[in-house]
Each structure stands twice: as structure tokens, then as C-alpha cells.
């Protein structure tokens, strides 16, 4: 028995099956074609896996970086914890979290001889806190940047910006933004309270005072932003000052001609440090090592300093020299010239810079918790 109508419809149905079958078959084929290059899974802050950093290297070495971006060290740890071991080959972490990565067994030991430790711009970078354990290297410092007062020149003067006090300026009510991460913002409040070098090592009394100081800033606050939001709100003037950031954001906007700047105030500034580690159980440790070596070379350091997403200063002498040679403008803007008053290395030597750290006497959770409370205050 036949139904004429369905006979007419049948071929179309077969065609659909054929097409979907072809689609199903070609899917793995496509991924095989991609797999001919070595894929390196990277866990990093936004921008580290973009073409301006890795593009040239990818083309020359037949590798492909697959980046997963995070914001904040706790976010990074959570991402690693929730993936099977060996998921991430290359981990770019903040310096202060290397210790935790190591304690949790998430990273591999590295061979110090592979990297230019004899060429560091500052002796601190050679044995950076937490990067070594029992004389074994676990993480390679790549770059750094300084956090201080970031402001719009139209509403905050350079004199005012010389102290964190400017965040409380009445004219800035509703115009002070926060980068939505507790460590840098609370760190600055701690500096403002005069805790100086022990900014992350505060006892119970100082912690209570730190919370009070922070809460007193709350009426000034116009919003809490991720990287993109911080960017946009400074650029379009929604926020006239920003707490918790530094040149890594205003630098990008400055390059674009926005009237914004970052300075290290008299209470001192915070350094963020970014370091590469090799993920535990990675099958591509050799490839990763090669890439880290490239990024530590003069060319790699220049790429990092010029990074489109956000700038960071060179940590090797060769890198700095090369930057001055190929991009004198950026070198001058970011103070990476000897004798410049903003020279990040000089600032470290003057003792005005404190390396960002995790809280010593409270747990990260306490800080986190307070941060949530603050946002809701």
C-alpha cells in the first residue's frame, strides 16, 4: 500500500538525513584538521591569549593557544579546581597566588636554567616571594604593573591624586568606581590607613579599622566593574576616579587619548605581578617552556609591554632596552626609562611599592565576605 503524498515527501526527508549525516561526519573531521597544530590550553587574565601577544609565535611554531580568561586569583583557583588535572598547560597567575597553586599541587616544577635570571631589572624579581620553594622554581615572573590612584584629569588635580584621600572628595560623589576585586581595593584602603608595608598583614584592630575606612567610602561609589566595565566607565566619564586599578587600565585609555592617568600616591602603591606556571600533568610542558622562554626574550618582553589589552612593565634589562629602541613613546609613557620619575623600578627602590599579597592574618574568605557586604552597604 502506498501513500502518494508521502512518496513525494520522501526524497526531501532522505536529503535532510543526508545533510545532517554529513554535518555529523564532518564535525570530527574539522576538529582533526585543527588538531594538526599543537593546542596549548592557557588560563590567564584577559588579553594574554590574543593575537597581538601569541599570533606571531603561533604562526612560527605551529601551535595554537586556547585561552580561558578569569578575573581575580580566587576565580583562577576555582577554575582549576573544577577541571580535570592537566586541563591547563599554561597558567598565567598573579604572583601572590603562585604559592597557593603550588600548595594545591596544580603546577609543575620548572628549570631555572631555562630562563634569564641573570638579566633581571630588580633583584626582587630573581627570588620573587612564593615563586620558589625549597630552592625549586615553580613560576616565572613575566611582567608587573603598579596600582595607585587612577583619575580623570578634568576633575582631579595631580596634587589631589597624590593621596588616596581624593576618593573622598565631595565632588566625586557617585563618581568613584571600584574594580570588582577585593585585594587591590582593600589593599589601597589599608595603605590609606597607614599600614604601609604591612598592608596585607593587618591585625584584628587594623582590620576593623580597614573595614570602617572602606565603608566610609561607600557613599562615593558609583559602581563595581569588571575589566571591561572599568574601561568603559572611565572612558565615557561615568567614573571620574577609580579605586583598585592603575596604569594597566588608564594606560590603554591614555594611548587612545583619554584625559586619564594613574599615579602612585604618597601612601604608597601596590604592584601586581604576573607569572607563568606550567600546569600539573600537562603533556605539553616542553612546548610551554619554549613559549615562556620566548616571552622572556627581549621580543617577548616588548610584546608584553605593548599588550593591547593592558600594559605591564618589562622585568628584564634586555626587554627594557629593546622597548626603548622599538617603541620609545610607550617606554616614555610608562616610565620605563632610567631617570624618569615614574620608572617602576625606581619606585620599587624608593620603597613606595608593595607587592600585592593575600591577607596574612585573615583568610581570603574573610576579605571576600567583607567585599560582598561592602558592595551591598
Amino acid at each position, binding site marked *: *500500500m502506498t*501513500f502518494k*503524498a*508521502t512518496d513525494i*515527501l520522501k526524497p*526531501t*526527508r532522505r536529503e535532510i538525513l543526508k545533510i*545532517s549525516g554529513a*554535518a555529523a561526519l564532518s*564535525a570530527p573531521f*574539522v576538529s582533526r584538521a*585543527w588538531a594538526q597544530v599543537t593546542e596549548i*590550553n592557557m588560563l590567564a587574565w*584577559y*588579553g594574554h*591569549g*590574543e*593575537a597581538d601577544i601569541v599570533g606571531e609565535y603561533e604562526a612560527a611554531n605551529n601551535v*595554537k593557544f*586556547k*585561552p*580561558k*580568561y578569569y*578575573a581575580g586569583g580566587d576565580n583562577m583557583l576555582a577554575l582549576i579546581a*573544577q*577541571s*580535570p588535572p592537566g*586541563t591547563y598547560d599554561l597558567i598565567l597567575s598573579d604572583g601572590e597566588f603562585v604559592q597557593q597553586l603550588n600548595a594545591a599541587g596544580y603546577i609543575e616544577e620548572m628549570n631555572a636554567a631555562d630562563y634569564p635570571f641573570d638579566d633581571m631589572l630588580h633583584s626582587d624579581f630573581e627570588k620573587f616571594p612564593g615563586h620558589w620553594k625549597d630552592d625549586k622554581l615553580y613560576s616565572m615572573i613575566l611582567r608587573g604593573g603598579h596600582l595607585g590612584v587612577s583619575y580623570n584629569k578634568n576633575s582631579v588635580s595631580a596634587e589631589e591624586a597624590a593621596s588616596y584621600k581624593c576618593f573622598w572628595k565631595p565632588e566625586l560623589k557617585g563618581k568613584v568606581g571600584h574594580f570588582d576585586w577585593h585585594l587591590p581595593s582593600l589593599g589601597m584602603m589599608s595603605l590609606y590607613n597607614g599600614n604601609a608595608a604591612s598592608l596585607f598583614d593587618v591585625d584584628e584592630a587594623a582590620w576593623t579599622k580597614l573595614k570602617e575606612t572602606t565603608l566610609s567610602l561607600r557613599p562615593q561609589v558609583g559602581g563595581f566593574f*569588571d*575589566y*571591561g*566595565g572599568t*574601561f*568603559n566607565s572611565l*572612558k*565615557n566619564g561615568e567614573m571620574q576616579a577609580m579605586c583598585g586599578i592603575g596604569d594597566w587600565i588608564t594606560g590603554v*585609555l591614555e594611548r*587612545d587619548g*583619554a584625559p586619564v592617568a594613574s599615579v602612585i600616591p604618597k601612601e604608597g602603591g601596590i604592584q601586581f605581578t604576573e607569572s607563568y606556571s606550567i600546569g600539573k600533568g600537562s603533556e605539553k610542558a616542553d612546548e610551554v617552556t619554549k613559549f615562556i622562554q620566548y616571552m622572556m626574550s627581549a621580543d617577548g618582553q616588548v610584546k608584553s609591554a605593548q599588550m*593591547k*589589552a593592558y600594559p605591564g612593565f618589562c622585568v628584564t634589562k634586555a626587554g627594557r632596552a629593546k622597548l626603548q629602541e622599538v617603541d620609545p613613546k610607550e617606554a616614555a609613557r610608562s616610565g620605563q626609562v632610567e631617570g624618569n620619575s615614574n620608572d617602576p623600578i625606581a619606585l620599587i627602590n624608593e620603597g613606595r611599592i608593595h607587592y600585592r599579597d593575600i591577607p596574612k592574618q585573615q583568610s581570603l574568605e574573610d576579605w571576600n565576605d567583607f567585599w560582598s557586604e561592602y558592595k551591598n552597604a
Partner: protein
Amino acid sequence: MRSSSFLSGILRGYTVLMFAFVFAPIAFSVIFSFNSARFPTIPLESFTLHWYQTIWADPDVWEALRNSVIVSLCTSVLATALGFATAYTDYRYNFRFKSAYLALVLLPPTIPLIIMALAMLAWFSKIGASGELWSIIIAHTVLAAPFAMAITRLRLNQMDKDLESAAWNLGASEWRAMREVIIPFCKPALISAAFLTAAVSFDEFAIAWFVSGLNKTVPVLILEIVQGNIDPQVNAIGTLVFMVSITLVVAAQVFFSLRQSKSST
């Protein structure tokens, strides 16, 4: 109601305004995708195709697109098949707990995506399936199947109840009647459902963001740019995605109405 023609005029004007509100952001994103300013502000700078060139040359965009296409194709096939099976069950059978059965099927779209995302992330990690492309496919299928079910069910409503039984009476097995009567009859609805479920999957970002791991889809890539470098690329990507989706929807619409008019002649 001639006396209220003035009121009608106001209502119409109001409706146009409301449409302007709905379409303003879409129009702006299209305009700014051609604007040269790195940070979109008023007034406009010069016309440029730079952002389109940027995304064209960016392998990450292509890979995200590949992922999105795979995910929405697979979701579309799975969700349409499941939706059809469920619609047919609802159409033909009565059984105990049928309302529970229907609730089970139709509830997912009423759960906020962020909750589904958290639940899926935790569940997939638990059963060791997180971070894979097919984790997104599974989650999207749960989300999209109810839409496929609804569309197919509406189509089945239009079917003459005797059609299937007539086929049986003519000696066709249930299977054969399904193959040669029901499915052909539902075909326009199935195609619509396939397009719609593909579109639902193509634009979903919350669940995809939570469970995707390293396998980014286009909306997750957009989210990352918005959270990260926030540049006009997102407008270019958004405009292209918009064009593709609209083409699909219009195609589905045209196909559907052509079929309808053909079959009614």
C-alpha cells in the same frame, strides 16, 4: 469607534515609540560596528570596516563560530526529535501522571538561566562531563525541547484525528503510519522547530559560559569581550549574528508559509 480616533492616533504614536525603544539598541550596535572609534561615543567618527576585518582575521572568532554551529545544529536535531516524541505522546495517549509528565517537559524555560547554569555546571562536574562541547549541547537541548514540543503539538492539533487510524485500518503498522503519515504531516512544524531551537541555542550565553570550559561559543566570546577588552568587535559580531539569525527566521517563515499554502491547495 469614530469618536476615539484621536485616541487611536495617540495609541499608534505610542506604539511606534515603543518599537523605537525595542530597536534602538539593535540600530546602535549596527551603526557602531561601522564606526572607527575604539570606544564608541557620540559623535560618530569615520566609517570603517576595520572591526569586520578584525573579526574576519581572528581565528578565535572562527573557532567560536564553529563551536556555535556544531552546538546549535546538534541541539536543534536532538531537541526537535525529543520535542516531537513528546508532542506525539501528548497528542495520542492519556495516562496517569500525564500532567506531571508535561510539567517535566515544559518547565525548563521557566527556570532562570543562571540557576540552570549553576546546576548544570555542578552536575556535569560531578559526572565528569564538564567543559566539553556536548555538555553545552545537552544543556541547550533541555532548554530548547519544550519549544519544539509546543510547535509540533500545535501542528498535531490541526491533524484530522482519523488520518492515523485510517492508515492503520488500511493495514499499516503503527510504525509505518508514523513514518508515512504523522511525520510527513508534521514536517513543516519540525522544520520550524529545528530553526527555532537552533536559534535558542545560538544566542544562549549563561549556561554556555558556565559549562563551556575552553570551548567558547559565539555568545560566550561576546561576553568575554564585554568583560574584557570591550571593543567594537562585539558590535560587528552582533550585527553578523543578527543577520544570520534573521535570515534563518525569515527562511523558516517563508518555507513554512509556502508549504502551508501548497498543502492547502
